Structure formats: structure tokens, C-alpha cells
């Protein structure tokens, strides 16, 4: 009986091809929109998370001054210095890597080409702290760090902008008015979560940076990579204590530095992105509702148009529920059909967007299954009223209907 109803539904849909297509369109657009939104959304949030992971795992970033997100920005405060770094090194436990950094924007020149980049002075633990790996070459040696050797490690953007196909290893790169030997090239990390190109970087030993580039001994920030994720709060608290001690922040006084937990920021950003995905999905879901109402509309028209047919069926002994199920199955088939087409179009759109926007294609089988179930549910909900109307027709009246 069910199979007969399904066959009947297909017959009726085929006989009213144009009308069926237009009805489907509502559901198709709704489902496609939801699938595309959710798939692109979770792709984006995956990308955000990947990017944040690239910043380095279990990272604490220490900066002088209290940064505020409101107007005014960071307050002026004393920079960190060597003493701060050694105090942290000797007092903290559970730390995988600790790297002081100082940064300055500078123009780098090789041959006839130049490029604006960020120059960072640091030591070898920086690469571990930031999860950087080397494409070729090596990090700074201890003696280069101690003596402030004229060496540098460059990011892949610098390679492509200045060296092209040439091998940069061993070349002399001019940074501002100072020249250094390229001893290493970093693997590409791509864009950061904040949209900056992480590969546009030149690194040199901190002492070299202080002497040759900055002209002072300030340390702009310190990166700490905590060994165990669960340990982050403890290390953060200890770090704050050490810094208050070293920087002589009195009891009751506000910190004149900031310790930021990057993992937490990563989670916040991922959450925001998920929230946004949900919101967009919800907006798209409204169009699904509109599609459902379209189905109800067409089914009502169909019932009116086929009143005589319903009369015949009732006269020859169809039960109410048999007529009901016939029309219900028809609307479910319509809605499912629309749903399946919508899922395919939605995935295609998401696929195209993932290429254009350079985000991963994050098709989720659960979302697809849900869209499928929701389509069927729309068929049931919006098909029930017209179907009941058909089932309750008076056979005599229905047979007289022209």
C-alpha cells in the first residue's frame, strides 16, 4: 500500500511537472541556503582554529602595559628587559619554550628588490614556542645568540618576493642599513587568524636586533609555550607573580603588563565563528519555512483540482486514511525531492565558496542528514492539512465537482 502511494505520488508529480518544479524550488532554495551557510560557516571556523593553532600551541604572550580593547589602546609602560627574561626562566616550571622578542618594521633589500617586513629579534627557543619548522637551513647557534652574529632566518614570503627561484641560503640580505647572512628559511604558516601574513618575517638574534636595528635593549614581548595544556592557568598565575615581583608592582596596584592565553583567545574566536554560523543557518531556515508554506499551497490547489479523482477513489472504497496517506506521501516525496536537490546545490555552493574564500570544505554528514529529515518533516507538517481535507471530502459532492 505504501509503495502504491509512493508510485502514485511520483505519477502525480510527473503529470504536473512544471508546478512540481516551482513547488520544489522553495524547498531547494531553503535547504541549499542552510547547507551552504552551515558548511561554509564550519569551514571558516575550522580555518580560524587552524590559524590559531599555527600561532603556537599552549601559548602565553606577555606584553608590557595594560592593553584594553576599548579606545585609548595600550597604556605606556616600561618594556621588559633581560632581567625579566632570566627571572622567568629561573622561576617557571612546566615550560616547553620561552622566547623574548622585540619587533620593528623595516625594509629588506636583496639585489634590486625591496620589501617591507617585520624584523624580530629573538632567540632559538622562539621557533619551538611558535611551532615554526624549517624548510631549509638552521636556527641560530648559541654563539650567534650570545655574540649577536649577523645572521637571519626568513619567512617564505620574503623568499618569494625577493629571491624568486634563487636559493636564499648564504645570501646577504640587507635589513635597513645592516646586512645579514641568511642561514635558514621557515616553512609557510599562511595568514594568521588576524589576517596578517605570518610568513612576511625576518628573524635575527635578539642581541643583533638590539644593536643593529633598534638601538635600544627593550624586549617588546615574551612568548611562553606551556608543556601541558592543563597547566596553562598555573603557569599564567606564576608568570604574573614573577612579573609583579620583577617590575615591583605593589600590593593593590594594577599590573603594568598583560599575560594573554592564546588558547583561550582561539576558543573564543572559534566560538564566535560557530555562533555566527548558527545565526546564518537560522536565517536560512526561515526560507525553508517559506518553502514549506509553498508546498501546502500547491497541495491545496492539487486537492481542489483532483476533487473528482478523490470522489472516485472514495466511491470505490478507499478509506479516509488511504486518501490521507496518498496526499501526505505526495507532499513528503515533493519535499524530500526538493531537499535532496537542495543538499546537492548547497554542497556545490559551499564547495565553490571554499575554493574562492580559501577555507576548508567542511561538509558535515550530520547536517546533511538533518536537512534530509527536516525536508521530510516539512512534507508531513505542511502536507497534513491539505491531505486531511482531501480525505474528509464527501464522495457525492466530490463526484459532482467539475
Amino acid at each position, binding site marked *: 500500500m505504501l509503495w502504491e502511494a509512493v508510485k502514485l505520488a511520483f505519477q502525480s508529480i510527473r503529470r504536473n511537472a512544471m508546478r512540481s518544479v516551482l513547488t520544489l524550488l522553495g524547498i531547494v532554495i531553503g535547504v541549499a541556503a542552510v547547507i551552504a551557510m552551515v558548511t561554509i560557516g564550519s569551514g571558516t571556523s575550522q580555518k580560524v582554529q587552524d590559524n590559531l593553532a599555527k600561532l603556537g600551541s599552549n601559548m602565553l604572550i606577555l606584553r608590557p602595559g595594560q592593553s584594553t580593547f576599548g579606545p585609548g589602546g595600550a597604556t605606556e609602560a616600561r618594556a621588559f628587559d633581560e632581567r625579566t627574561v632570566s627571572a622567568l626562566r629561573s622561576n617557571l616550571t612546566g615550560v616547553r619554550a620561552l622566547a623574548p622578542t622585540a619587533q620593528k618594521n623595516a625594509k629588506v633589500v636583496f639585489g634590486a628588490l625591496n620589501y617591507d617586513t617585520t624584523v624580530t629579534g629573538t632567540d632559538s627557543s622562539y621557533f619551538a614556542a611558535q611551532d615554526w619548522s624549517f624548510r631549509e637551513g638552521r636556527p641560530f647557534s648559541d654563539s650567534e645568540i650570545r655574540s649577536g652574529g649577523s645572521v637571519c632566518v626568513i619567512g617564505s614570503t620574503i623568499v618569494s618576493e625577493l629571491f624568486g627561484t634563487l636559493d636564499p641560503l648564504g645570501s646577504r640580505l640587507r635589513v635597513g642599513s645592516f646586512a645579514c647572512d641568511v642561514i635558514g628559511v621557515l616553512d609557510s604558516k599562511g595568514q594568521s587568524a588576524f589576517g596578517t601574513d605570518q610568513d612576511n618575517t625576518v628573524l635575527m638574534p635578539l642581541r643583533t636586533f638590539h644593536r643593529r636595528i633598534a638601538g635600544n635593549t627593550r624586549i617588546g614581548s615574551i612568548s611562553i609555550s606551556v608543556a601541558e595544556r592543563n597547566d596553562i592557568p598555573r603557569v599564567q598565575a606564576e608568570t604574573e607573580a614573577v612579573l609583579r615581583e620583577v617590575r615591583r608592582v605593589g600590593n593593590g596596584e594594577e599590573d603594568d603588563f598583560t599575560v594573554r592565553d592564546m588558547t583561550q583567545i582561539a576558543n573564543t574566536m572559534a566560538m564566535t565563528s560557530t555562533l555566527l554560523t548558527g545565526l546564518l543557518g537560522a536565517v536560512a531556515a526561515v526560507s525553508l519555512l517559506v518553502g514549506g508554506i509553498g508546498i501546502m499551497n500547491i497541495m491545496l490547489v492539487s486537492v481542489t483540482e483532483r476533487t473528482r479523482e478523490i470522489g472516485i477513489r472514495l466511491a470505490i*472504497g478507499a*478509506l479516509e486514511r488511504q486518501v490521507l496517506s496518498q496526499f501526505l506521501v505526495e507532499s513528503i516525496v515533493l519535499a524530500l525531492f526538493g531537499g535532496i536537490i537542495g543538499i546537492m546545490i548547497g554542497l556545490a555552493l559551499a564547495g565553490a565558496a571554499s575554493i574562492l574564500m580559501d577555507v576548508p570544505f567542511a561538509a558535515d554528514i550530520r547536517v546533511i542528514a538533518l536537512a534530509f529529515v527536516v525536508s521530510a518533516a516539512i512534507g508531513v507538517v505542511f502536507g497534513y492539512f491539505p491531505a486531511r481535507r482531501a480525505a474528509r471530502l464527501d464522495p457525492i459532492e466530490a463526484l459532482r465537482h467539475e
Partner: protein
Amino acid sequence: MTEPPLISFRGVARHYGEGGGLIRALAGVDLTISRGEFIAIMGPSGSGKSTAMNIIGCLDRSTAGVYRFNGVDVTGLTRDQRALLRRNYLGFVFQGYNLLARTTAIENVELPLIYRGMGRRERRERAVHALHRVGLAGREHHTPAELSGGQQQRVAIARAIVTDPLVLLADEPTGNLDTSRSREIMQLLTQLNLEQGITVVMVTHEADMAAFAARTIRFVDGRIDADTRREAA
């Protein structure tokens, strides 16, 4: 013990509306129809003949009185119970054929069997057989649009008899047909009545057609005006 009559009306009435606008379509009718009869119901329009037909066919319910079908009081049956009764014991033929459009002859004939939940193979077999009986062998896969009026009515008759009903109810079966097509249809009904023993109850306003029936019941103003039996020749 005598077999109960197939159809028995005792004071069956059907009223529409109420108060001053009350219409008595049937005003208390007594009627008995036995198995195997061929009955023509005649009468001017508004005489109650169609109402009587609808009540016999369990498409409508009486307002008062008792209708027994095969000895069973069907007055109080629910909608679905009446549908089951129609499905199992009654076959309908209408003036306008009432076939499903864009549906082949055999699919039309199979329809009542589908509602009976019969298997595909058996359904097909019986439908082919029924079409054969009405003289439409070879037209199984024609749609109504590809068939003449007479042929469409034959498909409708095939659909009515495919379930082997006790009663075939025909409402102006020849109303849309020319004289020779009408005679062919009447011959078919007579043949089904004689050979298969199917009780035929037919509404008509043409005396020519009524002449095929063994018994003619005439309605006037919601009452039976005359009930005549043709003497066997």
C-alpha cells in the same frame, strides 16, 4: 430458513436543510430488492431516484428509516465502514464514466483491488480478465483520452465488476452515449446480470434502456409511484 433480501428499505427518508427550507428528497420509502434482479429506477429529476441510489450505494445516509444490506443494518455505519462495504460488495458505474485521466484502462480497473491490498500479479490478472469480459481485450494500455465514450464506459464497468460485487449500481450509464452504443452497454449489463448473477440497479430516464430491466421502479416526489415487473416472454 429464507435468505434475507439483498436490499431492504423500511421507511427510509432523506431530508436536506431544516425548518422552512426542509427538502424531503426521500419521504419514507419501502423497497425490497432480491439477489439477481435487474432493476431500472426511473422518475423525473428531483423525484428522489438519485438520492435512493446514493443511499443504496452507501455514499449517503438516510435521515430516518432502516436500510438493511444483505440482512445487515447499515444505517449507523461510520464513513470507513461504509467505504469497506462499497469496496467489498458494490460496484459503481457513472454517467460521466469517472475514470482517472491519463491513467491506462488496466490501471483504472486495478484501482479497487489496490485498495483491497491485493498483490500486483493477481491484480493484473483479474483486471485483464475483467477488461476481457467487457470486450476490451487489447485496449489495456489505452488512456481514457484514447478511447471512445462507449469504450470508456466499458472500462468503468470492468472497474465495477473486477471485485466481483453483489450489486452493480449504474447511474445513467448510457446518458452520454448514442443509441447503438447505449444498446451495447445495456446488453453488457444484461449479460453480466444473467451470466454472473450480479444484481444490477440502474437509474435512467430513457424508457428504451429501462426496458432491458426485469423490474422498473418509478419515483415521484420522493415516493415510489409504480413498481412493475416485466412478464417473462
